[in-house]
């Protein structure tokens, strides 16, 4: 895919000569004695589509508000284009924010809401209607232009907020859960529109989302946050395939976690001893581990195969009993109970109709995976 091609080329964070557009340097933000952002250091590059992911209350909005200028860091500094922005008031920053609460002006129509920022800008008066209408078309709001915010639906309001923040085409656009209230189809369309806008205008996007799929689709990099700290920053595929911690592995997607003791073998090989009567798990890791170190083995359900016959020449095989099957349409997740009592999840695509499938509840099955399918985590 062309898209994919482009993404692999676009890696400014790997290029030492590239200057970040935003730099957080040891930024801490406290509200009273509560620490919302804890000594955070982060670089975001021009033209990035940077996604912030994390549980509720971890500080995503606070991070955005500091960029927009509504909160000042308690300590540390934020640089925009190499200039410390602490003293720059919000209206002088080339940053626009879409508020999580939308913050639409209730006394203005949809049209005037979108035009609000343009009218305060240097844009010639004659160009404003064209730009507003373009935004209305983009967000499919043309027919609601004359309505007030309280006369439209929640999803429509969200789109007005999005259109209003996009209208000025700022250098940096902060979107706090921009698509949460939209249905899947509209959301997908808007995601692609956002990516398209970014291609055309070169705007840098920082986007907060609770939707992992969205982060995976649109983001150049994803930051996973926890309690005011950033746990991992990486491209979506690296976040998914090689999480650096149990927290990230568990937060992004579905994962099986097995606790055991690591016994390194030759090269990158490692054996993880777990459960009483279980054969050790064979895995690969680049980490240097002490023999007997406690580790967690993480493996995604779709990396585990399931079979009703013992498979030949698989690196890892365990036997179990089907406890539950979750049918998700295109795939099914099998919950398999091992003799030790642990439950592993395995996923298989539903290439056959249900009636023709051969695995069902209480069947004895074999789960298997290769030695590179999972990863070994120490934290």
């Amino acid at each position, binding site marked *: 895919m062309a898209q994919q091609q482009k993404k692999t080329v676009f890696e400014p964070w790997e290029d030492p000569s590239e200057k970040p557009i935003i730099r957080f340097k040891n930024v801490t933000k406290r509200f009273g004695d509560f620490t919302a952002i804890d000594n955070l250091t982060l670089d975001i590059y021009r033209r990035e589509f940077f996604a912030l992911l994390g549980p509720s209350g971890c500080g995503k909005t606070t991070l955005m508000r500091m960029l*927009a*200028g*509504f909160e000042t860091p308690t300590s540390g500094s934020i640089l925009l284009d190499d200039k410390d922005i602490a003293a720059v*008031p*919000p*209206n002088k920053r080339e*940053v*626009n*924010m879409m*508020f999580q*609460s939308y*913050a*639409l*002006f*209730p*006394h203005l129509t949809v049209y005037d809401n979108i035009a*609000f*920022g343009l009218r*305060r*800008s240097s844009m010639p008066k004659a160009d404003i209607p064209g730009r507003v209408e373009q935004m209305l078309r983009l967000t499919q709001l043309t027919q609601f232009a004359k309505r*007030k915010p*309280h006369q439209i639906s929640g999803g429509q309001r969200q789109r007005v907020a999005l259109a*209003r923040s996009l209208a*000025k085409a700022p250098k940096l656009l902060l979107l706090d859960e921009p698509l949460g209230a939209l249905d899947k189809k509209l959301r997908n369309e808007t995601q692609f529109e956002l990516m398209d806008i970014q291609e055309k205008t070169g705007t840098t996007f920082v986007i907060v989302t609770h939707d992992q799929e969205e982060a995976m689709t649109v983001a150049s990099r994803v930051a996973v946050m926890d309690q005011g700290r950033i746990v991992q920053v990486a491209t979506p595929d690296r976040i998914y395939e090689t999480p650096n911690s149990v927290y990230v592995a568990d937060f992004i997607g579905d994962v099986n976690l097995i606790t055991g003791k690591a016994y390194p073998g030759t090269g990158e090989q490692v054996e993880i001893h777990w459960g009483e009567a279980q054969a050790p798990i064979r895995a690969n890791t680049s980490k240097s581990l002490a023999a007997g170190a406690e580790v967690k083995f993480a493996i995604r359900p779709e990396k585990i195969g399931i079979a009703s016959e013992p498979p030949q020449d698989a690196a890892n095989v365990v036997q179990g009993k089907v406890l539950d099957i979750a049918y998700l349409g295109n795939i099914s997740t099998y919950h398999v109970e091992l003799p030790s009592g642990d439950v592993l999840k395995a996923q298989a695509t539903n290439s056959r109709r249900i009636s023709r499938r051969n695995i069902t509840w209480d069947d004895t099955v074999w789960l298997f995976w290769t030695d590179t399918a999972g990863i070994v985590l120490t934290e």
Partner: protein
Amino acid sequence: MDLRRTFLIFVPFAWLLLLFLIPFGIVLKISLSDIALSIPPYTPQLDLSAGWSGIVEYFQALDLENYVFLTQDNLYFLAYMSSVQIAFISMVITLIVGYPIAYGMAKAPDHWRPTLMMLVILPFWTSFLIRVYAWMGILSQEGFLNQFLLWIGIIDTPLTILNTNWAVYIGIVYTYLPFMILPIYAALEKMDGSLMEAAEDLGCSQTSAFWLVTFPLSRPGVIAGCFLVFIPALGEVVIPSLLGGSQTLMIGKVLWEEFFSNRDWPVASAVAVILLLILVIPIVLFQRNEQKQREAGR
């Protein structure tokens, strides 16, 4: 269910009927009567013992003479106009003084607000009359204000404030300020703070954000406050009587004099009916504003 609703509607209607419509009917009737040296001091009186002919006679005796009289003497027209002017100017001053106070209250830290609110309402704890008398003590020639100004040396001779329209303005603005502050405060306080942030984010300075967002959103409060000041100020009696001078012409004062000095109840009633008609316009507008606000709030 239906019975309950009927009852709920009935209560305010009964209230209105008992305390407004019936008294108003009586006043209207008196305004159509003629002055007489009797108790009560007007004719005709309804004489039911004369039967049907008595009732007919009674209604035939009613006429619009008193209203015609009001148009013949310039005094009444001038008094109405002067009242409207004083009420309007007082309303504007109250708005100019009250808005910043309400704004300051709404922007104050949460734990301060109940105290500030209390301070605004506090004057109501003493009698209105006592507070007006207190102003006489402050504003008179040898009052506190003049003494203070003389002491700091701004003036050499005492200012004459009491018994002028100045004193009336001061009195009205002082008395009705809480009625301006409270609705504006209510409107500002429920305003979402992120709206100001959004305006700034989109390129407004704090000042223009105020005029483009905060002020338009507080408009229902401003309108309510203006009516709450204008309507009672128009018919104000006590303040112009006690603080105003002989040249202070307000319809409330005229009304008072017609009733109690001249004992001309029919003319006084006619004055009252006209005053009410003048007030109906702003009252209807006020109701409209309230209704619009309620609809927008949904």
